[in-house]
Structure formats: structure tokens, C-alpha cells
């Protein structure tokens, strides 16, 4: 399976949420992320962090998506939640990270995520954000 095909079908165990850009992105994404963060057994403060990251992605990602929807693949692990956002326009991954800066606070995603990476895939790219908790 090619990378593009894998992205289209999703990896086994992945939850994919696709929300048309507009007023439903924030409410739906924050609830789904909160639910999966709880399933990943993240403690309450990290669950809040995950929801905050979801809110930022919801508000900033539409400007960088290839399509008129915000698409996020979510995968849970042992006290880990990964969000894969895309397909994004070329350069959209880094632009989305930069856009996550809040005046007076700094870059929220960079401060809250354990790992951030941008992975190219053909004409598109994906922003992968991982939140974890290690006791």
C-alpha cells in the first residue's frame, strides 16, 4: 500500500474524524480528542492539554488544509495520544505550527506536545502531534 493509500484508508486501530471547515470543527474535534485522551489514560492535566491542542488545530488548520475539511487521524497508545492532521498544503505543516502561537503565551502546540513532526506525502504533508504522560 502506498503512503497516500494508507492515509486514505487509515492505519488499523485509527479513528479518523473529518469535519467540514466551519462552526462544527471545534466542538466536534475537542470532544473526540477529549474522549480518546481519557481512553489513553492521560491524567486530567494532560487531557486538558490535548483538548487545548485540539482547539488550536480546529481554529488554525482550515487555512492550511488541502480540502475544505479538517481531517485528523487519532491513535491511542499506553498513555499516549497521537494526532495526524492532513492532508495539508505544501508548507502547511510548518505554517500550522507557527500559527499556533498565542500572543503573550507563545507557541501552544510546541509547549504542550511531546513530539511534533511534519511528514511529506506526495503533494501533501501531515502534521503529527504526540501527547504523552510518563509517570
Amino acid at each position: 500500500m502506498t503512503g497516500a493509500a494508507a492515509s486514505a484508508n487509515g492505519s488499523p486501530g485509527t479513528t479518523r474524524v473529518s469535519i467540514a471547515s466551519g462552526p462544527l470543527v471545534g466542538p466536534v474535534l475537542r470532544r473526540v480528542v477529549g474522549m480518546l485522551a481519557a481512553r489513553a489514560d492521560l491524567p486530567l492535566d494532560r487531557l486538558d492539554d490535548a483538548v487545548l491542542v485540539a482547539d488550536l488545530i480546529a481554529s488554525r488548520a482550515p487555512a492550511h488544509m488541502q480540502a475544505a475539511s479538517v481531517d485528523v487521524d487519532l491513535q491511542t497508545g499506553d498513555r499516549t495520544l497521537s494526532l495526524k492532521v492532513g492532508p495539508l498544503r505544501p508548507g502547511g505543516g510548518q505554517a500550522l505550527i507557527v500559527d499556533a502561537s498565542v500572543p503573550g503565551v507563545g507557541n501552544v502546540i510546541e509547549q504542550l506536545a511531546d513530539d511534533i513532526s511534519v511528514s511529506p506525502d506526495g503533494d501533501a504533508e501531515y502534521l503529527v502531534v504526540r501527547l504523552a504522560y510518563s509517570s
Partner: protein
Amino acid sequence: MRAHAFTPTLRAELAQIGATPSPVRLSLPAQPRNIAVVRRALEAVAEELALPRRLIEDMRLAVTEACTNVVRHAYDDAGREEASAMRVDLLPSEHGMEVIVEDRGRGLGPSPDAKGPGLGLPLIAALTSALEVSHGADDRGSRIAMSFAPASIGAA
């Protein structure tokens, strides 16, 4: 819950994104734990639309039944982990919402692990204002399209 005054504005915004195939689509493995994810997304959309609480409760029950059918009957162990094993579309409509639950499993007909007709579909029919059960895309799997409108409250 948001004030009802918010609803016309939201509906106008949603009307502008009508060209999108589905305002909200979830693609998930057909696992029992994922039914809760669907319910949370459903609640989010319904509450943003300021739908009546009783209608939301009916929707939660009907959609839970539809997803439970997929989890219990659609797959043997091989296919249920695929991300596209269960697909749920949430589509706000003029007066309520349409929800489509689709799978790529064994399709319509008696399930080998069921002793007889269950209560799921009759219950869903009682809770919806319109119900359509058919084969999924490419005649594969099954598709349940449920329409919910305030007029259907308490029809059960």
C-alpha cells in the same frame, strides 16, 4: 446548552458548506469502545444545533443501536480493526439531523451469531422520523440512514 438564538446563524454557516459530502464524518474500527466516540461527536453537533434535549437522547439511543449492530454482527475478527470498518456521517438538516451508519462487513441478512430478529431496528424505527436500511457502497456491507426531527420526539 447554547441559546436557541444561535441556531439560525449556525444553520446559515452550515448551508454555506453544503457542497462538502458530509459536514462530519467519523471512520473507526468496529470496536465497542468506539461507540462512545460516535456518541460524543453526535452530542457535539446536536448541541451546537441547539436541538431539544429529548431529541438528542433519542438520537443517542438510535445511533448507539445502529453502531452496536455493526460491532456485533458486521464483521468476523479480520475486518473490524480497519479504520473504515464503521463509518458515521452526521448531517445537520433543515429541522434536525440525519445520521448515516455504514459498514463494509457481511451485509444485510441474518447474522450467524444471532438467535432471531433483534429489537435494534424496530427501536431505531420508532425513534426516527425516517429510516432507510440498504446495502452499503458497491453492494458491500450495510447502510442505515436515520433522520431525526423534533416531531419524532416520543414517537416510541
